[in-house]
């Protein structure tokens, strides 16, 4: 056994098994001594089953390292055998980590893909307009407002809940759908939409200011390139100039930012989902952390890591498509 978390886990297991044993009518005829022995055996078995009898990590010998729990988690993670959770169940009653994650993923994807798309395209659009009007009142205002994004989305979420749910009673406090859920599919969708408004708004407010600010600066830098100036001299009209001479050369950066933002969004937001009681991966993360459910935490992390790896790999191929300066393979240079 290892650190303090292991002690907590061990105490949890002992308590759980004691309660089970004492409440089981089959053991009513046992003496206290026999019960104590039975509990001890069952606890030892459970500890062995969870692998808690092995040290968490060891570096004293190669053998020790290969037989530590960390190595076991690592191998399981790499081979995507996410195994079974320790405490958390899926709503269908399964303890398979895959199933639990699969059940939660769509809700996170729904909420945060929408939110991220909104923030991304809104900030890109506003930033382009502002970069055209460098130094104007709106531009200076956007710079001044940028620090508003230092407050996280759940902070704005709480305020929004206070205003729109508690005081005005226009929108629900949280959750996915009304209770009881509407039978009609369209009504169901509308109900989900209604529950999405406040988390979306919170996410949007906390993301938009810094998004606008950073893209505006980005576009300002690239709109002073010589070839942009030249295109302007050529009489390329404004919109076309932006598309062909600012957005097009910076497409790899924009795509990268977009892809990484999207997969980060799929993994949900831990506190925002908890604040809004949204049944996505974020609140699953929260539950897993508070219950020391290692397989779930490892599972979520590993899926994100694989998603990141695959995305970066795909991005490398996309770069070669959108930027002629990058070539695939060792093609002869012209």
């Amino acid at each position: 056994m290892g650190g303090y978390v292991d002690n907590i886990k061990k105490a949890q297991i002992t308590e759980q098994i004691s309660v089970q044993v004492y409440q089981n009518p089959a053991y009513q005829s046992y003496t206290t001594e026999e019960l104590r022995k039975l509990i001890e055996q069952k606890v030892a078995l459970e500890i062995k089953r969870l692998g808690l009898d092995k040290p968490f990590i060891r570096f004293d010998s190669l053998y020790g390292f290969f037989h530590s729990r960390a190595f076991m988690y690592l191998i399981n993670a790499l081979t995507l055998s996410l195994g079974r959770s320790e405490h958390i169940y899926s709503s269908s009653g399964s303890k398979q980590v895959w199933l639990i994650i699969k059940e939660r993923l769509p809700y996170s994807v729904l909420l945060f893909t929408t939110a991220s798309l909104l923030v991304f395209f809104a900030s890109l659009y506003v930033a382009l307009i502002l970069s055209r009007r460098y130094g104007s009142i709106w531009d200076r205002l956007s710079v001044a407002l940028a620090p508003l994004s230092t407050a996280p989305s759940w902070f704005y979420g709480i305020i929004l809940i206070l205003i729109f749910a508690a005081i005005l009673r226009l929108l629900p406090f949280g959750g996915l759908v009304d209770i009881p859920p509407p039978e009609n599919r369209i009504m169901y969708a509308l109900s989900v939409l209604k529950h999405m408004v406040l988390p979306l708004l919170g996410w949007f407010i906390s993301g938009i200011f810094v998004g606008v600010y950073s893209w505006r600066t980005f576009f300002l830098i690239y709109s002073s390139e010589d070839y942009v100036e030249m295109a302007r001299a050529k009489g390329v009209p404004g919109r076309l100039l932006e598309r062909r001479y600012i957005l097009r050369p910076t497409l790899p950066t924009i795509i990268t930012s977009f892809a990484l933002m999207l997969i980060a969004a799929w993994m949900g937001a831990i506190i925002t989902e908890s604040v809004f009681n949204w049944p996505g991966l974020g609140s699953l993360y929260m539950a897993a952390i508070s219950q020391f459910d290692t397989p779930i935490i490892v599972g979520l992390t590993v899926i994100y890591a694989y998603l990141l790896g695959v995305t970066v790999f795909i991005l490398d191929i996309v770069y070669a498509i959108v930027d002629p300066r990058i070539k695939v393979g060792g093609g002869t240079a012209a």
Partner: protein
Amino acid sequence: MEPLLKVEGLKLYFRTTKGIVQAVDGVGFELMPRTAMVVVGESGCGKTSLARAILRLLPKNVHTYSGKIYLDGQDVMQLNDEQFRRQIRWQKISYVAQAAMNALNPVIKVGFQVAEPLLIHKRMKREEAMRRVVEAFQIVGVPTDFVDRYPFELSGGMRQRVVIAMALVTNPQLVILDEPTSALDVLTQANIMNSLKGIKQEFDLTYILITHDISTSSELALEAMVMYAGQIVELGKAGHFYLEPLHPYSQKLMSSVPTLREDKELDFIPGQPPSLINPPKGCRFAPRCPKRFSACDQEPPMVEYKDGRKIKCHLYA
């Protein structure tokens, strides 16, 4: 004959944190069709700003942009930005930017970039425009199969030629060349200068050639303008200027140019060009001028010399 370009009292001031920069301060000149004017002066004297002011390529921190510019008799300062874009840019004036190495969009094929003004201003079909591009490439000496290449696949000299082809493709009347050869090796410089000379004669073009390379520019120049601290100090026929510069600054400038046949000691101008923020009162060259006298703390008038040259100096008043 009517001048092609007439500029009067052109001012272009920039706003900076240290104050107002008077980059172009009351410049006026006339340019006849089919001539070539060379604009010389030290770095930072306002040559490039003058080109940008004529093309209305203004940076974001403009403080003052005023004066009169007549092109072919038309008062272009009256046009709004959209009219200026449609009627003037690449229709009548084209531009070869300084640092043409970076004047091409890195992710678009050079052929398309050269064709772009035709597509925008002449509403040409793409195939037709590409045929014109091939012609333009032949004129400036770029292999015609380069149309499908990207800028990074071209050498510096080739890129420069592509930018020149881009400036010629719509048959504008006036081409402003801002140091078209400054980043190139001497052989390529000479090559490009020769091409420019041939093109000018062939297509009846008018050039404004901005340079600090006085010797190379003499190949092309018919008129000469010397700028100092945002103002014109000497303006006239290039032949007169190259043989016998009148303004003390022009004289110093010419004596700093090495020549092959003459045996002369190269001269330099002591001191620094003045800051264009709060430039000195009176003659702006006075602090560095070897011939200064009491009158020089007054603003010198523009004096017409007997050969028709205009000199901004008290010596000729």
